[in-house]
């Protein structure tokens, strides 16, 4: 199990490898990266900030739900200034079978977006947008 908020680039290969165990037959991974276009809006970069202590607590709460079902979990979110194509988040679940891996990986990323105190400031070509707030 690994939960981390980091300023450093996310090493997806090492994190993936850490989820390979003999007792699990399937690993599902979600990688979120900085997207250039959202409809007509062009993004140039995104700055992520966090309330780190609370964010890691909230990530642990989510991971605990999945760990309690006997799976392994990796949740890493990068903060700071990210450019197009940079990886912002890595969620991985290792489970005995693929269905549980898919389902729980989706649960973790969906809930992370709702509860974990991380914020994005999106530098778009037309203006700056704060994630989560109405324009």
């Amino acid at each position, binding site marked *: 199990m690994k939960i981390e908020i980091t300023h450093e680039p996310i090493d997806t290969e090492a994190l993936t490898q850490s989820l390979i165990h003999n007792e699990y037959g399937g690993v599902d991974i979600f990688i979120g990266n900085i997207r250039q276009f959202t409809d007509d809006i062009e993004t140039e970069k995104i700055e992520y900030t*966090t309330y780190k202590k609370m964010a890691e607590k909230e990530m642990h709460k989510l991971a605990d739900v999945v760990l309690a079902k006997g799976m392994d979990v990796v949740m890493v979110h990068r903060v700071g200034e990210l450019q197009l194509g940079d990886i912002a988040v890595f969620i991985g679940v290792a489970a005995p079978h693929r269905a549980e891996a898919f389902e729980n990986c989706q649960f973790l990323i969906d809930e992370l977006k709702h509860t974990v*105190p991380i*914020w994005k*400031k999106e530098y778009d070509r037309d203006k700056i947008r704060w994630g*989560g*707030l109405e324009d």
Partner: protein
Amino acid sequence: MKVKLFSILAEEIGPTTEVDLKSEFYPSDVKQAIEDAYPKYKEVLDQSLVAIDEEYADDKQFSLNDVAEIAIIPPVSGG
């Protein structure tokens, strides 16, 4: 009491703001006090939650003596 701010509130007001709270208070009192000082952020505050000691707080009464840290949590947008 010093209150931690994040996201747009931190950038425009500062990383913390000082709020006068009664010895017994509700999380909504914290938001109201900040709104009184910075009415421009009413809409953001309306959408924000309050965290007490790094936990989302229900709007129940808290004793200031038992509280170490208060933060305003604007809508989160990680991922």
